[in-house]
């Protein structure tokens, strides 16, 4: 019962934090320096790891699909499988998981440390709302950077799949065949579905990590606990939301 209460409390306070941050949306233009700094943190520094991971996800998909589809003589459709899987599901989800692990944990640690060191209290006494200065630029940055990261992840994944399909001896299908199948079955709508998912995941991850960070109490030990909690909660929410968004998108 106590845990259920704390879950509802957490959801409620995250929603309140989101609404508060949204209320300061008009101040975003004059916070452009913070916004671009967060874009750099969320986008540029995450890009290499997104690219590496997406490449190998595409490659593994092509490899496994090639191995399974060979029996049916359907190797030429590997491109469609990799294309659809990356665009609708694996692209946005992998980017969100990386975001939670790399950026979410950093956000949570930074804000928890600021809270424990009373820097957040200092902001409140100076009449500088933390939702405006600490949360809003991060939310705006994640909304801008998630589609960019997801599109790059999709493209690199598709390319990884093509490379493996072409140069793996047991698969050996040409890039033309691979991309023809990909283009035939992966529509622009599928990419958009993936981008919509990515936006929701990104928003939720940043909001959860900000909220947990800003509600940290105690000493340095609680900072570590806050980081762990924010990553675990983010990962669970990504998977749960993924199911419901997929359900809505496919119905």
């Amino acid at each position: 019962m106590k845990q259920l209460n704390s879950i509802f409390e957490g959801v409620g306070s995250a929603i309140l934090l989101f609404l508060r941050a949204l209320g300061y949306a008009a101040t975003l233009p004059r916070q452009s320096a913070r916004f671009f700094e967060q874009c750099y943190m969320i986008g540029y520094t995450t890009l290499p790891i997104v690219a590496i991971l997406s490449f190998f996800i595409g490659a593994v998909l092509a490899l496994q699909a090639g191995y399974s589809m060979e029996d049916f003589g359907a190797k030429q459709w590997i491109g469609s499988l990799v294309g659809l899987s990356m665009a609708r599901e694996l692209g946005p989800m992998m980017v969100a998981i990386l975001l939670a692990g790399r950026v979410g944990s950093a956000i949570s640690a930074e804000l928890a440390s600021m809270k424990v060191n009373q820097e957040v209290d200092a902001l409140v006494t100076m009449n500088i709302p933390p939702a405006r200065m600490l949360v809003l630029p991060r939310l705006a940055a994640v909304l801008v950077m998630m589609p960019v990261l997801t599109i790059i992840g999709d493209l690199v994944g598709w390319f990884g799949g093509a490379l493996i399909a072409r140069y793996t001896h047991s698969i050996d299908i040409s890039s033309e065949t691979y991309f023809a199948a990909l283009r035939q079955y992966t529509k622009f709508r599928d990419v958009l579905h993936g981008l919509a998912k990515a936006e929701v995941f990104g928003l939720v991850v940043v909001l959860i990590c900000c909220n947990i960070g800003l509600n940290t109490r105690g000493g340095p030990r609680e900072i570590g606990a806050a980081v762990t909690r924010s990553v675990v909660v983010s990962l669970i929410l990504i998977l749960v939301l993924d199911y419901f968004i997929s359900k809505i998108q496919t119905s």
Partner: protein
Amino acid sequence: MADPSTSRKPFSSEDAPGVGVQVEHLCKNFGRLEVLKDVTFEVTPGEIFVLMGPSGTGKSVLLRHIVGLEAPTSGRVTINGLDASADQTREAVRIGLVFQSGALFNSLSVYDNLALYLREHRLGTETEIRERVMHALKILSLEGAEGKLPADLSGGMNKRVAIARALVMEPQLLLYDEPTSELDPVMSATISEIIATVKDQYKVTTIVVSHDRDLALNIADRVGLLMQGRLTFLGPPSQLMHPKDPVIADFLNPVIDIHHPRFLKLAP
């Protein structure tokens, strides 16, 4: 807030008269723990009020109520009649709080720590902000420290930067949480002088939480003594020189007797 377009001398008290603080029947519980028990007092505009008491008696919690960082369990705290915990109060009254730890923004330089409030509230151009920041640094003898990060400062400098950051706001109410803790006697005396000078020059209402007896006796207009969550004394510091209450006397003038049973208990 001051109009940024108006040219004015930094830290003038012309438009920043001190404000009054009223604490009425304030009680605060954390779970089953009663921290503050029916605390009532008033601080008049322009006064230096020092709140003393042993460690862990609720002084800092009381300060957090005045600045609106905690909500009372019962009772109320008002600043010029406005509820201290309401966001609107912080918009109507400029409140500076000097935290015990300094609470400086670790990722910002000393200069940016001081300039943050002015920039966020758009109180002037960068040139005007620079003028106000440098003036505050000069008052606190911190010239040359503007480029340093908080991690590079000594304890005394950290406190002075925290005071400078509060001063830049031109506060109407200035609160200090244990300003002389962890400082040597010379630095403690310097900080006491700074608190008194700031109050005299800028007529700012000042509340100091401390268990430094010398600081209280030297700078306070009135002293409150908080013991076990209750206000047990309220009056001018002169009355504290020869307290009649043995508990208060023991707190203010502790006699260390190593033959006392409590010390003998520690012996192997």
